[in-house]
């Protein structure tokens, strides 16, 4: 049992859970959380791919990709949340 195997399987499980949530969730906010779980699962797999048995240093390229990914995901989240807020306001106003 090495860390890469444990966390690799963790990442795959998180990705699958996120995918199932994104397909089934009804609430917009929860679907967004599910998609974020998917992105975290993908991040896990990339970091695992970079891992080398210590004392070898890990591969820096996947690390850089994951850092880029984290920032892109937070931008996408902010846009999605703004759209969710706007949609909710418009829907509520129509109901009045």
């Amino acid at each position, binding site marked *: *049992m090495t*860390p*890469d195997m*444990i*966390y*690799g*399987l*963790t990442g*795959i*499980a*998180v*990705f*699958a*859970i*996120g*995918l*199932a949530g994104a*397909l*089934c*969730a*009804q*609430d917009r*906010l*929860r679907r967004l*959380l599910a998609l974020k*779980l998917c992105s*975290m699962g993908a*991040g*896990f797999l990339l*970091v*695992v791919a*970079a*891992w*080398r048995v210590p004392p*070898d*240093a890990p*591969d*820096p*390229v996947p*690390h*850089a*990709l*994951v*850092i*880029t990914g*984290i*920032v*892109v995901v*937070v*931008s996408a*989240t*902010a*846009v999605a*949340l*703004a*759209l969710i*807020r706007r949609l*909710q*306001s418009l829907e*509520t106003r129509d109901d009045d």
Partner: protein
Amino acid sequence: MTDPLVIFDLLLGLSIVALALAVLSVRDLFAAIVLFVIFGLLSALAWVRLSAPDVALAEAAIGTGVTGALLLKTLHHLRYVTGTLDRPEAMNLTPVTPVPMPVLWVNAAFCGLIALGLAVAFLEAPKVGPGFDALVAEAMPASGVDHPVTAVLLNFRAYDTLMEVVVLLAAVIAVWQVERGLSEAPAPHLGEVWQGFARLALPAIVVVGTYLLWVGAEAPGGAFQGGAVLASVGLLLLLSRFYVPQPAHRGIARLAFVLGTGVFSAVALLVSGGGRVAFEYPLEHAKTLILLIEGLVTISIAVTLAALFHGREPVALGEEERRNDT
């Protein structure tokens, strides 16, 4: 006897999977958000165990700071708009028809199959794949910095990083298009203890953010981590309404948004003269140029993330526009 660290890894992996399940299955949306923040925290610990402190730092800065506050703010806004602030236990904000059970089962089976396929592929994959380690190690002396991840981000694969700054810019443009108006929330009364804490913590966060930016040249850290830490100062200022965005401040904000992208592209184009390609920094100036880009990109990232949290373009609107609580 097994190494206790293996038990630690197993326990951490299992709890991360359990938290992912809990985020999607817990009834209360507020609890789902808190669990998601904790999920990010434990993921950062897992990445530390995989010797990826840079990634853990980015997740710690963004996951515990911006993401949690952004999700909580949106939940508050949705409950304010739908008038369910006093019924926090409501599972969904809008009533929905339940999904039929067969559909759920088909979806679950589909995702299980994908997970199984991924797991088989992962376990069958060769132990040490072709990595970029050797290439990066060989090129390190020409990069101008001593930390491989920073070298990859700002030199070897600088196109990716430029695109990332552009994505942030695009996100803030989109958010400003979607929502506009001034915030009418009252200034919160947080008490004297908070005032004292803010006086100590806000400068401390600025110092740590700048330190992370500076240390990025030879150790884990860099523009994104520093920018995300600095953005939390903006978050705290906006939350406590020490700073309230005004229509007149939009020019400065726009300048800060494009600063990173602008300088990054300008440097890339300027060094491309004299037989070099874009992003091929002259060796003797490499470190200076990288630090210049990183510093300005950090400011851009910090301001953009804070603006993404605030969420709407500060424009004075007419009376008929809906009032806004957040």
